[in-house]
């Protein structure tokens, strides 16, 4: 029982990361109707942005690991990733907006490969140790909790889940209560009508990529707090799983992405804990195939009709 609870806690922390990445997939899909394959690599770049800026930033905040320093590192990585996301959209996707879907898809795969293999060239292919930006330790649970006090909850896990919740709340406010958010929702409903109503398509698309990529960047730093080993290909598998999460929750649906991320994180941890670690990746893909077979619109999505 205690062991199961422990697995659940680990799964929720892992799921929060997937949720953050999945949001980027789902937002871009919502407005552009295509899968941004390079999104997982933006997550990787977020981790590396943190890796290279953390020593300098921590020095400003007094040298050692600190919460203010960690927040600054997180924000820096988010800003850098937002910039990268906007650049990718501007250079690679915008010229292809009127092209066949296959062309855009292949370009996206190309961008993903370029970021991954370029990262191997620039950063080096070997895993790097992420600097300690907060003192990560297990939280002492009160002994009055009885056998529950043997559970291990680390500060990193609490921070990851907390940050994810805060970011989700900010995102919800932006999407539901600002004019930009209104424009985004209008675009995802009907791009032509939205443009006719004066929505600036290019600006909104850039904004969507910026937000999605910032979330991925945050996920990159947050994941490195828990598992301080980063390498240039870490984005591929995390990106694919986050994509499965987005599909599971219903692609195009932001709360769905968060829910899907959580479920995939839990599933993955439970499979590793109770079944066989080598089945982790195949099972996640099996979930994807099952979802697409039995409920292609996902858990929270609405079925969509193909129009002529």
């Amino acid at each position, binding site marked *: 029982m205690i062991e199961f609870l422990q697995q659940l806690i680990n799964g929720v922390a892992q799921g929060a990361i997937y949720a953050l990445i999945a949001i980027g997939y789902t937002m871009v899909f919502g407005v552009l109707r295509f899968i941004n394959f390079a999104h997982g690599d933006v997550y990787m770049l977020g981790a590396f942005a943190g890796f290279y800026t953390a020593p300098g930033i921590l020095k400003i905040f007094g040298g050692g690991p600190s919460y203010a320093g960690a927040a600054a590192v997180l924000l820096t990585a988010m800003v850098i990733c937002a910039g990268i996301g906007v650049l990718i959209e501007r250079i690679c996707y915008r010229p292809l907006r009127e092209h066949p879907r*296959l062309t855009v898809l292949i*370009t996206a795969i190309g961008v993903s490969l370029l970021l991954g*293999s370029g990262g191997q060239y620039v950063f080096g292919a070997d895993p790097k140790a992420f600097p300690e930006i907060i003192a990560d330790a297990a939280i002492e649970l009160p002994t009055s909790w009885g056998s529950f006090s043997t559970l291990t909850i680390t500060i990193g896990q609490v921070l990851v889940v907390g940050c994810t919740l805060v970011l989700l709340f900010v995102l919800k406010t932006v999407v539901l209560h600002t004019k930009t958010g209104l424009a985004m929702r209008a675009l995802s409903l009907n791009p032509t009508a939205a443009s006719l109503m004066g929505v600036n398509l290019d600006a909104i698309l850039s904004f969507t990529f910026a937000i999605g990529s910032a979330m991925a960047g945050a996920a990159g730093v947050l994941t490195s707090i828990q598992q301080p080993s980063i390498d240039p290909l870490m984005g591929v598998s995390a990106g694919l799983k986050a994509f499965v999460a987005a599909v599971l929750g219903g692609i195009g649906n932001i709360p769905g992405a968060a829910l899907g991320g959580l479920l995939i994180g839990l599933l993955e941890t439970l499979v590793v804990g109770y079944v066989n670690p080598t089945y982790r990746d195949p099972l996640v893909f099996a979930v994807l195939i099952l979802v697409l077979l039995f409920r292609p619109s996902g858990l929270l999505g609405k079925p969509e009709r193909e129009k002529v």
Partner: protein
Amino acid sequence: MRNPKFCLILAVILAAVVNGFSSVINPYYYDILITIGINVILAVSLNLVIGYTGQFSLGHAGFMAVGAYFSAWMTGRYGVLFGESAPATGAIYVLALILGGLAAAFAGLLVGSPSLRLRGDYLAIVTLGFSEIIKGVIQNAEPLGAQRGLGGIVQHTNFFWTFFGVALAVYGVLTLVHSTYGSGFLAVRDDEIAAEAMGINTTKYKVLAFVIGAFFAGLAGGLYAHFKQFIHPEGFNFLKSVDIVVMVILGGMGSTAGVCLAAALLTILPEVLRMLSDVPWLPEPARHLADNRMILYSLLLIVLMLNRPQGLFGRLRFGAGKP
């Protein structure tokens, strides 16, 4: 092609003649030649799926793995069923190749029939996921060597069988898409909704393209296993699939001749790049191009898609006439 059957027979005879001289070819070049042949089969078969039917598959290496492992397992277990003479083991080898192809085709049917009801982008990820599942199953299958890989495969593949396979794949794909029945593939690619409205069973065509493509990929896998004599699950990973996809896109989707040329070029390219590392006067980055060829490939993909979506040799055709 004015007379496809004649070309096929000519190609097979040519392959047999060249095979007679295989002992005088430098082993290094011989290795490259066989690899070119195997890659041409892979690229031509994937071109049927991507180029002619417009369905994006990122799992071709998975089908190749099915064929490679099935045929290697079969020759390993039943290789001397009819005795140890060369014709007897050769017959088992050919049978293993065909059955390996059929096993891959069956895998193609398994992936295809549920997922081809989906739209393009999903399909890419489902096929990728499926090849990961295949890899996962192999990694856990003790009779197939699991994580250690499968070794001790008898070398049967030679120039003749490889290019017999190439001729079959090219002939099969070209005559299929040029037949009346085969125009359904092109219709699905050009406009799926319109094709459906015209009464074409789009799902059937998509599944068929998948199954035929998977068959030839499995055949190529069998040839590969019986040439390299050792196969490993990681040899059929995502990057191998990407390699094949790059051949198709570089050559020009829907141009079999262009794809053949691109497959040959991209097989030779890493070897040429590797030679660069021995050139003393080149700057340091240029000498390491062979290790970083993925950067080159990905840049090629992006630049081609932005400026020349029809690929480098998209207008290249075998003989005169239609694509």
